[in-house]
């Protein structure tokens, strides 16, 4: 619905209509409509098995949809697959780089397969190694690389031909925090240069940080779409958790904090939970109110809504993680 409203006003980098895909008896996609504006970052958020990867595989011409259609920069992904492939880059959760080649050889190979000339391919490979902080490691075999280095190389490989549309399938799954932030920064640079990005993720914070718009996908259907703020508002925004020095004063604290809460504060696991509309200033507010009431605070923190909260809120049930994908990328 939301997608349809934007059609005609802004050019689409990616547009799908009623995408269906079945694997045997499993319906991976059950009619997915997406609209990604040129130059924007679109996050496809959902738990394992939601259909995110299937959608990316269709959009990158690796799979044919059973029903429905999809266009990438105006080309039909089935009928004009060859044209689509010239316009896209794909980096995936498996870090698809050749372990028996060096970083440089990997990028050069991809460059040649995009049909860049020999010299151009090499200089582009060197340039990318430089900008992804891999210049020193460029001559080493990839099997000696760390997980974070492989992801950076994988992302670099997706960028060899400077594609206008980039697909990132769970780009940071399995990475440590430092590597995740490094990759996020690299993606942000690309976006600032005008690349359209469609990324899938299981992490709300990742979608929140990178994406202009987010579609929440579950069991092959888009169950919510909007900006990060819009989704958070639907979930109930952020929450302050306060642990009191004296548990018996919980009731008084709830009363004291009611006026700053966006919803009724409540007691849970010995903490006072205070839903707030906006995190800015809310901790100071809470501290002041409790101070005025003479209630001592042991610990106070802000908790952001997670994908689990989004799901619980949108579907009334928790996410169902699937073990098979959880083990990917630990090497």
């Amino acid at each position, binding site marked *: 619905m939301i997608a349809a409203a934007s059609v005609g006003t802004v050019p689409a980098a990616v547009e799908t209509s009623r995408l269906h895909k079945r694997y045997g008896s499993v319906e991976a996609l059950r009619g997915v409509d997406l609209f990604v504006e040129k130059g924007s970052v679109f996050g496809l958020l959902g738990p394992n098995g939601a259909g995110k990867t299937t959608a990316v595989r269709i959009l990158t011409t690796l799979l044919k949809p059973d029903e429905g259609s999809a266009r990438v920069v105006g080309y039909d992904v089935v009928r004009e697959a060859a044209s689509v*492939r010239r316009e896209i880059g794909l980096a*995936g959760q498996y870090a698809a780089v050749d372990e028996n080649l060096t970083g440089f050889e990997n990028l050069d190979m991809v460059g040649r*397969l995009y049909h860049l000339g020999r010299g151009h391919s090499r200089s582009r490979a060197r340039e990318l190694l430089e900008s992804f902080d891999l210049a020193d490691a460029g001559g080493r075999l990839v099997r000696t690389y760390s997980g974070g280095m492989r992801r950076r190389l994988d992302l670099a490989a997706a960028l060899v031909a400077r594609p206008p549309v980039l697909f990132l399938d769970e780009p940071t799954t399995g990475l440590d925090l430092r590597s995740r932030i490094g990759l996020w920064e690299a993606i942000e640079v690309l976006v600032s240069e005008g690349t359209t990005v469609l990324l899938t993720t299981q992490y709300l914070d990742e979608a929140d940080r990178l994406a202009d718009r987010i579609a929440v996908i579950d069991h092959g259907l888009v169950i919510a779409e909007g900006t990060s703020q819009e989704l958070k508002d639907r979930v109930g925004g952020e929450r302050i958790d306060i642990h009191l020095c004296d548990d018996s004063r919980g009731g008084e604290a709830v009363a004291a904090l009611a006026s700053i809460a966006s919803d009724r504060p409540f007691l849970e696991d010995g903490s006072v939970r205070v839903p707030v509309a906006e995190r800015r200033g809310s901790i100071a507010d809470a501290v002041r109110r409790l101070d005025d009431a003479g209630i001592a605070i042991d610990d106070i923190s802000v908790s952001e809504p997670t994908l689990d909260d989004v799901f619980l809120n949108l579907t009334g049930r928790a996410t169902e993680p699937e073990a098979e994908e959880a083990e990917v990328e630990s090497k």
Partner: protein
Amino acid sequence: MTALRYGISDTLVLAKRSLLRIPRQPDLLVGFTVQPVLFILLFVYVLGGAIQTPGFDYVDYLMPGIIVQSIAFGGFVTALGLADDLKKGLMDRFRSLPMTRSALLTGRTLGDVATNIFQLVVMFSVGLLIGFNFSGSVGEVIAGIALLLLIGYAFSWVFAFIGLVSSSPEASNAYGFTILFPVTFVSSAFVPVDSMPSWLQPIAEHNPFTYMVNAARALFLGIPPGDNVWLALLWTLAIIAVFAPLAAWRYSRVVAR
């Protein structure tokens, strides 16, 4: 025209990739060099004394046979490589690139031709050191080498298919060896067919490996080949005609596992 030029360039880029892998994976290098050499030595010095090959020195009898076997197995790098690409998600990257789709297969099989040449050099060198003699004319020997390379190329397509239908590189290895290994033995590669039990002889006689081995033996040793060269060529082309499309069909269907 551009499509053809890109097709050739893509194939060469991927053949180079396939070849770069070999010196970097010592176990593969061992598979190409140490293993066949060990087989030659074991057969010649351990088993050879007990095998009767009327009209031939055993080393002369064995070399064409063991070379045909080794070269047929040389394509296992293709099976391993393709199964590995599937497993690691590299297949997705390649298939999302604007490259010629078939180049991943033609590149691998072309790479195998280069490794086959390397194998031939190693095996003939060892053979010559331990007493093998070419008795055929230069033309016959060249024809024999060309036939061997064509046989190697044909089996690369068999292995490409195996690699694309196996669930893992390990499985592709197991399939390749359990299916092909016995077939190479029930042939004239190591012992004369008429030394086998009578029920096995017809199978061995009509085994394509027997035609291939007999053809190579005739060309290298300068003995009348009969129909063997033509039948070997026919079988080799038939294997390509069947397995290249099979591998291509399977390739177009695979999704990363």
